[in-house]
């Protein structure tokens, strides 16, 4: 057999968008349906070149509504699939992100965030879609979102997003940003043998016994694909374990609880954070994505000034690491939240701090990253 | 007065017969089958089903030629017709 073209191996100097595409390929992504939008288009470009090399298909859809649906269709056809977008496209994908959630369809959606609202700053950085990632589609659900802060993490976390989406049968978001997407750094990729393709779990039950939307305690049912002979029915309506629509409050309760429980009861497995000098810190910076890169520098500056400062970086943003923040709040004076918006994750931190620690925000409207001096000033204020 | 031309081999052609089945509870009384049956086999019955519709009834079952049109036009999957096999139809075939 020829070399495994799925995995680009070795050390490369890649921008975040390209690294993301390579992470998807390594995970075994076979279908990309997308619509070009700055600053995510480099992902689409890379996928259009790479997917045909592994027998996959890149299809440029007519819009983001179609893109999101096409990757759901491809997933039920048996392929791992992905799309990518930015602000306006992310808004257009929201309706059918909800379809993916309710159909419990594994797939990956990458948002290279730019400044908004509306067309906003197409070529400049933003981080103001974080709450949309959590609550963007109508209805009640839980979702998984990861926030890479380097091209290496664009590779690693895209791969991981595929893994999580398969394990929990949920569309998984990679909430990156323009700066990380367009930044080039060294990306180290292990050989194909050490990077197995993410596997989908298929049922071993016979047709007639299999329930596509079963909810074993805290888990998910294995899948089938169209054409396997199971005559599955899949609907965006509230449905029972068979997938048949049931339009009443009881069925709604069972289904929505399942959508929430399968994520919430597995938080320990899903959540990943980076902690720096958290022990003994008076003040803790909470940040994610590109903003966390600025915080590293602010952390150095604060230490030079003798402040006892630590950092809590969200690698997984959703589900939010509530327990960890609650525990930290009991031990520290304050949290300083650094993000390119006027308070999104900030409110989550404040909520989980439960008044045990003060919560400060270093807001920024986007278009550029923070000035480390502004973060330092907030740290000083918080340490008082 | 209508004139029908009778085919010369009419006596040799076996006219098929059909058995009509109505799933009464599914019927919603649209009367498509009654209207479009080419042999006027069906009529709407007087009886009501549980939903309050009058299902059709085969009043001239012997005229049914199993063309299947009622089955095809019924929007409710409530009527179907089975072709009666020749051997079943024939009385006592002599043993050879």
């Amino acid at each position, binding site marked *: 057999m020829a070399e495994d073209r799925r995995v680009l191996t070795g*050390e*490369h*100097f890649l921008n975040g968008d390209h690294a993301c595409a390579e992470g998807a390929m390594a995970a075994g992504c076979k279908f990309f349906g997308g619509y070009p939008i700055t*600053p995510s288009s480099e992902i689409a470009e890379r996928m259009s070149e790479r997917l045909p090399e592994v027998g996959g298909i890149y299809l440029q859809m007519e819009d983001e509504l179609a893109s999101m649906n096409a990757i759901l269709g491809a997933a039920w056809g048996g392929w791992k699939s992905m799309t990518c977008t930015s602000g306006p496209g992310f808004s257009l994908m929201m309706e059918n992100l909800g379809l993916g959630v309710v159909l419990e369809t594994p797939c990956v959606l990458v948002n290279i965030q730019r400044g908004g609202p509306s067309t906003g700053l*197409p*070529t*400049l950085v933003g981080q103001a879609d974080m709450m949309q990632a959590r609550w963007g589609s109508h209805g009640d659900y839980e979702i998984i979102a990861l926030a890479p802060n380097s091209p290496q993490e664009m590779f690693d976390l895209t791969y991981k997003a595929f893994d999580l989406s398969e394990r929990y049968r949920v569309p998984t978001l990679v909430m990156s940003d*323009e*700066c990380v997407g*367009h*930044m*080039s*750094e*060294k990306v180290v990729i292990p050989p194909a043998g050490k990077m197995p393709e993410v596997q989908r779990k298929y049922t071993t039950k016979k047709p007639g016994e299999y329930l596509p939307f079963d909810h074993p305690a805290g888990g998910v049912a294995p899948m089938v694909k169209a054409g396997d002979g199971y005559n599955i029915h899949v609907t965006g309506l509230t449905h029972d374990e068979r997938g048949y629509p049931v339009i009443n409050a009881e069925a709604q309760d069972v289904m929505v609880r399942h959508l929430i429980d399968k994520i919430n009861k597995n938080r320990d497995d899903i959540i990943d954070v980076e902690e*720096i000098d958290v022990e003994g810190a008076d003040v803790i910076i909470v940040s994610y994505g*590109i903003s966390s*890169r*600025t915080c*590293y*520098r602010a*952390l*150095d500056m604060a230490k030079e000034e003798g402040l006892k400062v630590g950092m809590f970086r969200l690698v997984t943003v959703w589900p939010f690491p509530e327990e960890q923040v609650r525990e930290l709040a009991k031990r520290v004076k304050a949290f300083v939240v650094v993000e390119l918006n006027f308070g999104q994750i900030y409110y989550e931190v404040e909520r989980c701090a439960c008044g045990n620690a003060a919560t400060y925000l270093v807001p920024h409207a986007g278009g550029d*990253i923070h000035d*480390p001096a502004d973060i330092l000033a907030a740290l000083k204020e918080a340490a008082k | 007065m209508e004139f029908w031309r009778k085919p010369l081999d009419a006596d040799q052609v076996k006219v098929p017969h059909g058995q009509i089945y109505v799933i009464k509870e599914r019927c919603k009384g649209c009367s498509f089958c009654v209207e479009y049956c080419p042999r006027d086999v069906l009529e709407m019955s007087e009886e009501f089903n549980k939903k309050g519709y009058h299902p059709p009834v085969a009043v001239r079952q012997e005229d049914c030629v199993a063309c299947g049109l009622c089955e095809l036009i019924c929007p409710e999957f409530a009527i179907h017709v089975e072709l009666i096999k020749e051997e079943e139809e024939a009385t006592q075939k002599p043993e050879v």
Partner: protein
Amino acid sequence: MPAATPKRDEVRFTGFGGQGMAVLGYILGRAAAVYDGKNATMTQSYGPEARGGASSSQVIICDGPVYYPYVIVPNVMVAMSQEGYTKFRENLTDDGKMLVDEDLVSLAPDEDLDRVYRIPATRFAEELGRKIVANIVMLGFLSALTDFVSDEAIRKAIADSVPRGTVDLNMKAYEKGRAHGQQVAGDRSTKAEA
């Protein structure tokens, strides 16, 4: 994070869209990260216009991890446009080097001439047949003047980054710039000794 501050070099490239400022940053970063085993971060300013507008890229080369991804105070600045020179010239380390295209940039009256290197990059490139390789001439000059990245690493990065069929031309441009850089550096040190 390591306790000791690792050696961190910062370079800013600035010019017009179409001069290949992003390519320059990419080649330098790739050379450092992939072929010299260091860490490098390349970012670029990025606007809606594909050609003619202001364009710049930045590279940080570091022995340890690069945390803050943007240039703070560059050690070297390469200016291939007047606008870029004027906009960024104040921001350079005390011993920083300012490389300008001598035909495209007029120096400010108060410019510290000791830090400035005036290079006929575009003219050299035209002599080689393609104006488009002026950026690579600059890279050659930069390579002669600094030790951020090895000569060998840059050559490999050029060969891997430029379109196939243009490797020879780019290599010639690089060598031309580098030879010029070595000569100028030699002249300056002789002058300093004298």
